Structure formats: structure tokens, C-alpha cells
């Protein structure tokens, strides 16, 4: 059996964890989308928070998932996202069950982890290709 160096283990580890995380994230997002859009679309999916082009674009799958992602970020951390450009002017977050709020927080953390892994993988691969390749 070939001996794998530490560099190899790090690269494979990043790739595998990235692949697992992104798969979980996608399934999670689809589930949350189906829970959230019937509740929140009537309240949030309209102007001024989405312009007419976005209202058209985010009505179709899979782009509608992006809209649900925005909802989740807002529910998870309203203090931060209420002041962002997307929902600027919205006074309060529409009320949702605590379980949904908790799920949104879990999603946000998972997505943040995926981003960290993705950036690490790309930096690693750039470094590896440059110095080792």
C-alpha cells in the first residue's frame, strides 16, 4: 500500500469533507425551501425586497432555492440581515416556529462551514499546483 504524505491526507480530507458537506447542504436546503416558501412567500417575496426580474427568476426551480436561502439567513440572524440591502426597510422578521428558527441556524452554520472548507480546498489546490505540481 502506498504511503500517503500529510499533504495528501489534508487534500483528500478537505475534498471529502467538502463533498459531504455540500451534499448535506443541498438536501437541507431543498427540505427547508419546501417548508419556508409557503409560509414566507406571501410576506417577503414581493417588491421592494425583490425586483421584478428577481420575482420572475426566483419563481422557478432551482433558482427559487436562493430565495429560500435568503429567508433562512434572515430568520437565523435577523439582527444582522435586517440591515442588509436585501431586506432593508423590513421592520420585523415574520414569526416562525422555534424549530424552524433552530433549523435555519443549523443551516447557516453548515453553510458557513462549507464556505470555510471550500476556500481552504481552493487555497490548498492552488498552493499544491503551484509548488508541487
Amino acid at each position, binding site marked *: 500500500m502506498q504511503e500517503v504524505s500529510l499533504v495528501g491526507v489534508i487534500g*483528500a480530507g478537505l475534498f471529502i469533507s467538502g463533498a459531504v458537506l455540500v451534499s448535506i447542504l443541498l438536501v437541507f436546503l431543498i427540505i427547508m425551501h419546501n417548508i419556508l416558501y409557503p409560509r414566507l412567500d406571501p410576506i417577503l417575496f414581493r417588491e421592494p425586497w425583490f425586483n421584478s426580474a428577481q420575482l420572475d427568476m426566483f419563481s422557478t426551480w432551482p433558482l427559487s432555492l436562493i430565495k429560500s436561502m435568503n429567508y433562512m439567513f434572515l430568520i437565523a440572524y435577523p439582527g444582522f440581515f435586517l440591515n442588509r440591502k436585501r431586506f432593508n426597510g423590513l421592520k420585523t422578521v415574520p414569526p416562525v416556529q422555534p424549530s424552524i428558527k433552530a433549523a435555519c441556524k443549523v443551516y447557516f452554520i453548515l453553510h458557513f462551514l462549507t464556505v470555510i472548507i471550500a476556500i481552504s480546498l481552493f487555497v490548498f489546490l492552488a498552493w499544491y499546483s503551484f509548488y508541487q505540481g
Partner: protein
Amino acid sequence: MISNLSKNNDTIFYHVRSGDSISKIIQRYYGPIPAQQRNTIISQIQADNPSLKNPNKIQPNQLLQISIPPQYCSVDSTRGRTPTLRVDPQLIKPLQLQWQRATPKERKMLSTLTPLMLGTGAASMTMLKQTFNANKPLMVEMVKNYETYKAEGITKGQYDYQRKKIITNFNQRMGPLTRVLNSTRTQSEALRISRTKGRVPTKNITQQIGRMGKVAKYAAVGGAVLTAASLGIACGNIANTDSKLEKNQIFVESMGGLVGGALATATILFFLSPAGWVAALVIGVGGAAGGFISGVGLRRLYTAEFNTFDLTSMTRVNQLCKK
């Protein structure tokens, strides 16, 4: 006249600016032409743009679909050349719709980005379409082979040999895409000469040609088909490679590209909620770039660090992708 003009020409979207008139636009692309030909072109433009009621009253910011000669005359060089590209008719309607709904700011951006977006999208879709279309002549060759045999131009042995050669060639070129066409049937079965009385002997082949055209059309519809097909092509490459190392390299590169593309898209979406065309383009290009970097990088990593691990056997991909 009009239909001939459309077939041979390129299609462009022209963003009307202030000071433009239909005659000026035509002169720019066609050069000085007789009045009769200009009228024909105006009729063509009207036919392509149903919203254009009066060709003498075009408005700034309008988007006109125009057929132009492939080597057009750029009479007015002060504004620079409008980028041209061949456009799939299926893309025209959604684009027109987006254009009507866009704000002036978005329109300005869109007129610059459209050729790029349509170009990259169409290029990847066209690749698959071309794969099907490029192989149609092989089937025509098969019909000719049969007809030559029936006219006693060649012997039965020669006919069988030619037929086998064409089918092998076809299978090699199409790889796993033949599965899309034939499901579980082999290519030989799908292309058999019909012996049924009252049925045209070469009907199976002509049906196959029609089926290829349909699949090519479907392929132009969505990226999901493209992803599946690109994995299918990778699968075909794995099947047609004898070297175990190379099989694994192709596998790692394909998987790396897929996961890398998804990771790049997830990263961009985390920071950027698509608020316009630029964001949409960044997501598309970023995803593709991430997929490419990841695929190439992981292939190198595998070759240097993991080349004794037979991943295609471990994952049974070699069972799935075999000749």
C-alpha cells in the same frame, strides 16, 4: 428570399441607441444595398420582432433580433463592432422577455453581457448537440451501404463488414450517449434493417436519425442534462482507456470538477445574493472556474499521492463504465 437569408446568416440582438434608424442599422451590416433588398430585410426584421409595429419608429433601448451576413459590412466604425453570435432560437424568447422586464440600468448591462452569457451557455450546450449532429452522417452512410448492397453493388460479406465497421465507429464516437438514444438496446439492434413486409427496410435508421435530432434538442434545454452527459462522456473515456492510472485520473478529475463547482457556487452564494446579471454571471463563471481548478488540482494530487488506490474499482465505476 427571406428564409434563405435567415438560414445562412448569423442572428444578433441589436441594442437600439438614440440616433439609430432601421436603414442605418441595415446599412451598417449589409453595406450599400438596393432599395428592394433593404425592404426584404426590413420585412424579415419585422417578422423576427413582432413587437415592432412600425420599422420607421424604433426607440432607444429597444432590443432587435436581426439576421446579418456572417461577414458583415461594418460601415459605422465609430461605435465599435456589435458582438455577433449564432443564437439558438429557443434562447430568443426568454431573452426578449427579460429585456422587456429589465430596468434601464439592467438593460445597459444586459446588452454588454448577453453575447457572453449566451455565448458560454450556448457553447457548452452546442458541444453536446454537435456530438449528435456530427454523427448523423454515419447513419446516412449505413443507409447508402444497404442500398448499394440491394443494387448488387457489393457482396453480402462486404455489406456485413461495412455495417459492422460503421456501428463500431458510431459506438466509439458516441460512447455512453448511445444509452440515451437506445436505452437497453444495442446500437446494432437499434439500427437493424427491417425485414418486416410492408415496412421500409431502412426505417429503423431514419427513425434513429430523428431520435438523435430530438435528443439534441432536449440537450440544449438544460444544464442538468449537460452535467449528466459530461459525466457520461467521462464514463465513456474511462471505458475506452486501458491504463488503470488514466481511468482513475479521469474519475478523480470528473468528481473533483463536480464537487469543486458546487463548493464554489455555495461560497459565492453565501456572500452574494444575486441582485442582477453581474451577480448571476459571477456565480456561473465562479462555479465553472471552481470546478475546473478543483478537477485539475485533484488529478495532480491523486497522481502524486494516491496513484496506487484504484478508486474506479473501489467505487465500482469500472463495472458501470466498461466497453
